[in-house]
């Protein structure tokens, strides 16, 4: 396989390894009596962690490729969707559901078999849970592979539906009861941060780490044509954003969501940023030496300072290094522990063919390696290097 100058072999390699491993362990899982669903969950978790690490560029799973294809087709048939949704709205719930059966085959053509198989289940589930027409329309308009998972009622009385997509990400469909709130929040892009706050603040412990928010405005129910257009456009725009521009707004939103959940109680992003900003200085404080750098929150650091000062006084004063340096730090040979606390340790794991040394000139002949440099992954079949010691 000749590789062009711009192709990156890493995503394909990783994907093929994932597929191989999953297929090979399927038997093991069955022997242990573990459900296939768990195997799929393993694959999903694995792929999502790879995506989150951003170590691989252009890494899209098959399901996400299908999601993108579905989103594009939804865009192409946007007008049909709007017309059909308007028709749904004007009918009673039962009749609306009957029309929804017609929807999927027209909307999604590429992953046809998957959609048709899943839609009856979705509809059955919707019947069981008694979702409104707007919610069912929204759920059907979601990317393929999404099934309603849970219904949660927040303290504010809003009905949230936690929907789980095939790729493991969970979406929350919000059905707020106040239309005015949503009108303010209908602008795509910069809006979803406050929405996420409102949605997730009362739901801290209940949602796993990966969650996106899809706003389902109740304007659809009002049966006005203009508003329906706006809402579907926003939904599709948001769906496209979250799918086609993962590195941009959606990733920022997901990161905000994750930060919200990790902060456990901090509602405002500012508090979270402060919480995160507070953490690095505390992590760097290895020796407890008195540092004059940041004086924002110094509770624990002040304790270190006091201890250090006491020790210094007992020793009768040091070399004249009054300020930050730990005792006799000039004599230390290796001071690299602090550096290792940083984000990326650039690592190469490989096998060696030959290691050669001549005086202080070293030559490395390596093979079959995976490198993580500056946060990015690379692979090689052969590597030759020179270094001087």
């Amino acid at each position, binding site marked *: 396989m000749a590789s062009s100058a711009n192709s990156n072999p890493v995503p394909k390699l990783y994907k093929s390894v994932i597929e191989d*491993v999953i297929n090979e*362990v399927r038997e093991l*899982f069955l022997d242990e009596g*573990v459900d296939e669903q768990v195997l799929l969950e393993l694959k999903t978790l694995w792929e999502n962690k790879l995506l989150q690490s951003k170590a*691989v560029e252009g890494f899209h799973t098959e399901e996400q490729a299908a999601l993108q294809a579905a989103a594009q087709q939804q865009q192409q048939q946007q007008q049909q969707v709007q017309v059909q949704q308007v028709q749904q709205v004007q009918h009673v719930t039962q009749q609306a559901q009957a029309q929804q059966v017609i929807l999927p085959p027209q909307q999604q053509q590429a992953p046809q078999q998957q959609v048709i198989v899943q839609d009856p289940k979705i509809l059955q589930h919707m019947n069981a849970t008694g979702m409104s027409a707007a919610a069912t329309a929204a759920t059907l308009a979601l990317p393929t592979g999404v099934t309603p998972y849970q219904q949660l009622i927040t303290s504010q009385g809003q009905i949230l539906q936690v929907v789980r997509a095939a790729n493991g990400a969970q979406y929350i469909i919000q059905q707020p009861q106040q239309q005015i709130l949503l009108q303010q929040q209908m602008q795509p892009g910069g809006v979803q941060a406050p929405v996420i706050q409102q949605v997730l603040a009362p739901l801290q412990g209940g949602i796993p780490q990966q969650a996106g928010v899809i706003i389902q405005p109740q304007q659809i129910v009002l049966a006005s044509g203009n508003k329906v257009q706006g809402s579907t456009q926003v939904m599709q725009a948001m769906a496209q954003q979250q799918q086609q521009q993962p590195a941009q707004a959606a990733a920022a939103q997901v990161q905000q969501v994750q930060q919200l959940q990790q902060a456990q109680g901090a509602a405002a992003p500012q508090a979270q940023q402060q919480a995160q900003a507070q953490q690095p200085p505390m992590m760097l404080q290895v020796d407890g030496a008195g540092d004059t750098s940041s004086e924002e929150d110094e509770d624990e650091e002040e304790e270190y300072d006091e201890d250090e000062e006491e020790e210094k006084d007992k020793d009768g004063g040091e070399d004249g290094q009054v300020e930050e340096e730990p005792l006799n730090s000039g004599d230390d040979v290796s001071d690299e522990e602090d550096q290792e606390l940083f984000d990326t340790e650039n690592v190469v794991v490989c096998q060696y063919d030959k290691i050669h040394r001549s005086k202080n000139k070293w030559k490395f002949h390596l093979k079959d390696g*995976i490198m993580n*440099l500056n946060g990015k*992954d690379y692979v090689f079949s052969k590597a030759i290097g020179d270094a001087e010691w």
Partner: protein
Amino acid sequence: MAYQLYRNTTLGNSLQESLDELIQTQQITPQLALQVLLQFDKAINTALANRVRNRVNFRGSLNTYRFCDNVWTFVLNDVEFREVTDLVKVDKVKIVACDGKSESTQNKSDKWSVTQTPQISVCL
């Protein structure tokens, strides 16, 4: 048995984390997770040997070197990694390399494998 060397990579770590999550929710047993990792070792070793065909050159200064249990560990500074397409520079890099000539039956799990094997290993 393939080298367990590649478990400490992005791919390997994400797999281990995912398996840990499943263990915590008791959806799989630790034994099963271990089997998955062993399968991963085989798959990644095979994939690297067969599906990758590119070359990299690098140059830098050697800070430390260690050879223990047939595993070389280097720390280099101010290194440039050069491929045909692009160039990557790093201040510090750690290279862990297992013996590529003979895949011995010993498992090189982590970097610091201090295992004392009772029998004498024969290098062919």
